């Protein structure tokens, strides 16, 4: 599926977050984690949300995923209110979250299996995406036999195989070593370009946000507000093969990085 085709057929599959406030109680006190969040995620966007730890980034992701219900306001996907987890909103978790009682292949097939897709068909789908993330040779391994980076690749394949409208990623590369992280960032970018999927990606790394995102958001600390929201437009004109190190020293990249960093510090990070 090309990116353009995805855009025309799915133009109504946008995620709209309207006046969302989220509070939770801890030790008898009410804490406001998020306040008056308004945000629209268009199909095909790669939205990166950066912010200091504890600013409510993960809370926002869990609200979109349907793991939490907002205290106030509403979240819709394609006009339908989000009332709980669903296959149209796939989640890649921070920690490797594959099922150790299944092989890598069975994990990746699980989504289609739950939808009663025929065995041959779902096996082919799973194989396609496992090949895409470079795990074609590890189909019959158990997740615990794979390295951390490979487990995260398998999680990405599992979500892609399920073909959701939006993929929610909660610092998926946070626990990986620097080299593996850079490799997976490049691969994720390639996957996004080739599939045209909508991605909502949380990170505490400003560089990661700018490198990956087509749009970068910054959230302030408690209560969380979106204090910065800009498209990343200089990368689209660059050569896609440019080495990551070289890209990170581009003036436009450095400028945006400083801007975002300042925004995070000003917001109490």
């Amino acid at each position: 599926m090309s990116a353009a085709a995805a855009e025309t057929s799915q133009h109504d599959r946008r995620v709209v977050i309207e006046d969302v406030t989220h509070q939770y109680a801890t030790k008898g006190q009410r804490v406001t984690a998020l306040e008056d969040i308004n945000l629209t995620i268009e199909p095909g966007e790669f939205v990166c949300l950066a912010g200091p730890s504890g600013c409510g980034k993960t809370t926002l992701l869990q609200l979109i995923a349907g793991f939490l219900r907002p205290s106030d306001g509403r979240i819709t996907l394609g006009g339908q209110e989000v009332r709980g987890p669903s296959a149209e909103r796939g989640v890649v978790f921070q920690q490797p979250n594959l099922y150790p009682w299944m092989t890598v292949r069975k994990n990746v097939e699980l989504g289609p299996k739950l939808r009663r897709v025929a065995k041959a068909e779902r096996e082919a789908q799973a194989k396609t995406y496992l090949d895409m993330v470079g795990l074609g040779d590890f189909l019959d391994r158990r997740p615990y036999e794979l390295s951390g980076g490979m487990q995260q690749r398998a999680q990405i394949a599992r979500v892609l195989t399920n073909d959701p409208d939006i993929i929610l990623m909660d610092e998926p590369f946070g626990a990986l070593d620097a080299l593996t992280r850079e490799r997976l960032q490049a691969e994720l970018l390639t996957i996004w370009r080739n599939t045209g999927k909508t991605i909502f990606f949380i990170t505490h790394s400003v560089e990661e946000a700018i490198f990956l995102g087509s749009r970068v958001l910054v959230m302030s600390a408690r209560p969380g507000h979106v204090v910065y929201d800009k498209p990343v437009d200089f990368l689209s004109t660059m050569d896609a093969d440019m080495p990551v190190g070289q890209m990170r020293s581009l003036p436009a990249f450095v400028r945006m990085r400083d801007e975002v960093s300042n925004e995070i510090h000003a917001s109490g990070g």
Partner: protein
Amino acid sequence: MSSTPTTTAAPPAGPSKAALAEQRTVDRERRARRRAAAQRYGIRIASLVVVLLLWWLVTAAGWIKPLYLPSPGAVWDAFVRANSIHPVSEGSSRLVAGEQGYYLWQHLLASLQRMAIGVGCAILLAPLLGFLMATIKPIGLIVEPYLNFLRALPPLGYIGILIVWFGIGDLSKVWLLFLAAFPPITMATINGVRSVRADRINAVKSLGGNFLDVWRYVILPSTAPDILNGIRIAIGFAWTTVVAAELNAGNPGIGYLAYISGTELQTPLTIACIIVIGIAAILLDLLVKGIENLVVPWRGKA
């Protein structure tokens, strides 16, 4: 789209050399663990040989009276005698089979049968109660104190009331084993369900799973290692209980034979019974461990 699709070749998605090297390291570590396990068994066998030698030395030198500690040879003879037809006493022409009317293996089998029925019922029913208690709050709230109370009791403390209710025969012993095995399995199930990671449940829901899918693909397999562990504890506990429970009208029964032979001063037979009881316990444990490795190979790894 705010980004132009790539026209040039994308970076290769296949596993790089580094990833494959990482994978080789993981495999190498597994092999090293297996070698270490083989070494441990070697040490254990060597220590067993040393213990047997010491036992033989102490008895052969005559430092301890055979009544208190018979020689390994005498124990072996008692073991063989108890498994064969032999004269009732030395020089007598009257032949008997085994001891107390049964061969030793029949005594062992009788005890194992009581275990199979009592513990078997517990294995079938305890996880059900555990799942109910862990998922339906009021049930857990009401039942848990009673379960803890039952667990705290030494089963032999209530064998008397079971005999009044179910008679002196096998039924009271089977009930005893059932009640001994039930609490550990139920508690293990409850702990298992309560420790299922929220992320695991959320993941299957985000893939489109409904209530039944959450149970089938996440809660049941997540809990299986805990239940098996509970079963292992329950079997060990029930085995110590069955041996003691057979003091009352436990013929045939390996615990009965161990006890009665002691009172008749047949110490070689008593020690043979003790060794059989211990080896049976170890084999039962190995059996459950083997089932664990087969059914829940991921246990402790993720």
